[in-house]
């Protein structure tokens, strides 16, 4: 089974002083799929996400990545196993250039990051690969631009390039389309679609048309629990899902 499902959780629970943000969630993410986590506001999507990447420690339950129990691991160690996350607010290093942003990720895998006595020109050997990654997400003309000066959609693309630099097996994207213009959404959706050929992707997303378009399988969360799971057409006929969204004030 470990081969079929890259990430599994059993009874995943997070309690904040009596309030269960995530309760008894069993999730199975199939290798090579795009799996979406949706649900109304406050359903526990982001908490669930933070649990999976170890930015939060679960109160109970188990997380298996490639059959290995990662429940007690530190976030940096999880990242080293190839399970890499993005953030809701675009996560770039604002005053580094796009090239430097990607290079910081490349540098980690190749050791020597503690060398304070060497010139950073030794990092130039990563420039080629960094440019390749930037080209790949359509950012070639931005390579010397500080991230803070890039348009929002491009920052998200840069974030994806940085994540890809780690050569992950699985990417967790936290609302990759949040705050984006229509055309940026299309660009990033195409990009996600394209990279999904190589990676497993789990994403939290509010934009249902994006979810419909991209996901192979969707898990619906409400009040911290799994309400339903299936593909988009199945779920769009599900009365409970409709109710959960309408009940929470979504049109």
């Amino acid at each position, binding site marked *: 089974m470990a081969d079929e499902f890259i990430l599994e959780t059993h009874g995943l629970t997070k309690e904040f002083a009596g309030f269960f943000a995530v309760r008894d969630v069993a999730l199975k993410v199939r290798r090579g799929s795009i799996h979406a986590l949706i649900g109304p506001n406050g359903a526990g999507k982001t908490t669930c996400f933070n649990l999976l*990447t170890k*930015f939060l420690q679960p109160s109970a339950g188990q997380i298996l990545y490639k059959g290995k129990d990662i429940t007690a691991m*530190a*976030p*940096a*160690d999880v*990242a*080293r196993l190839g399970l*890499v*996350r*993005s*953030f809701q607010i675009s*996560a*770039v*290093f*604002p*005053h*580094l*250039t796009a090239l*430097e942003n990607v*290079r*910081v*990720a490349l*540098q*980690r*895998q190749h050791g*020597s*990051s*503690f*060398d*304070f*006595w*060497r*010139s*950073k020109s*030794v*990092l130039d050997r990563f420039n080629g690969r960094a440019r390749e990654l930037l080209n790949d997400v359509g950012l070639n003309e931005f390579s*010397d631009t*500080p991230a*803070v*000066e890039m348009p929002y959609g491009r920052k998200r693309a840069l974030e994806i390039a*940085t994540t890809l630099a*780690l050569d992950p097996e699985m990417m967790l994207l936290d609302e990759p389309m949040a705050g984006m213009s229509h055309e940026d959404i299309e660009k990033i959706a195409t990009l996600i679609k394209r990279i999904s050929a190589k990676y497993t992707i789990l994403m939290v997303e509010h934009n249902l048309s994006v979810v419909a378009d991209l996901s192979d399988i969707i898990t619906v969360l409400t009040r911290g629990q799994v309400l339903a799971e299936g593909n988009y057409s199945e779920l769009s006929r599900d009365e409970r899902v409709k109710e959960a969204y309408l009940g929470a004030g979504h049109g």
Partner: protein
Amino acid sequence: MSAMTDDTLPVTPRAMRDEMLVFAAMAVLLGLVPLTDIYPFFVMQALCFALLACAFNLLIGYGGLLSFGHAMFLGTAGYCSAHALKVWGFTPELGILVGVAASGALSVVTGYISIRRQGIYFSMITLALSQLLYFIYLQAPFTHGEDGIQGIPQGYLFGIFNLAQPIVLYYVVLAGFLGGFLLIFRAINSPFGEVLKAIRENEPRAVSLGYKTDQYKLLAFILSGTIAGFAGSLKVFVAQNASLTDVHWTMSGEIVLMTLVGGLGTVFGPVVGAFVIIAMQHNLAGFGQWVLVIQGVIFVACVLTFRRGIVGEIGHYLKRSL
């Protein structure tokens, strides 16, 4: 948005070349000081504080960690060097080594304790640890309490350079300062420095890329504390004493002030800031306790009008990182 954009000075090869040119100019100017009427003791003292501020700046400007206890490294190295020179009769180079080793060991311990906390909590822990040391030094017999260790022999460095001669001492201190400065400059522009900047910019993201950020912050802390200690050891030869002033919390505050006035996170800012503050203390000595008030006013003015500090504002104006 535009304000943020204006602040952006990407580190390019050109920026590094600019910095090397400014460094060369600074080295030449400082090398010419003995030919002028400028009081060398003042410059030597300023150089020690400049190196201290640069070490502090490595931690806050590039690691984003505000230490409010850097006087403990200055004072610890000072006391240990002074004791080794005076009581044990060590040669100058060994005396310096003892001081640097002591501050290095201290930075490992204090860094390990404080680095686990962030922001104001980190600052408060460093302050608390330095206060703890202050009271230990106040009571410990070897520091001679309020009197301090006085009349420290300067000796011959490497058996050749007579440090009792002001001109020799000046060039030795200058060489020490330039060496320490270059080490910091290299650390900032090293693979390690790149990671440190990334952590300062966005720590959660650095973690998500697989960096164990605490280890990088600890190394920055140890480098900073050790170099601050080196400054403290050099200062012993200049002042020929080691006293409680150097471990007092007001000293830690002065280090912060120097760095802010000069320009936080700039390469040369702390040097300029140290010279400005030390010059003020020299020239305003006649005002007695009012110096503190004047310093306070300057600090407020600095925060209100030129937040980037002197060098930061110049760099901003020239669109260069200095």
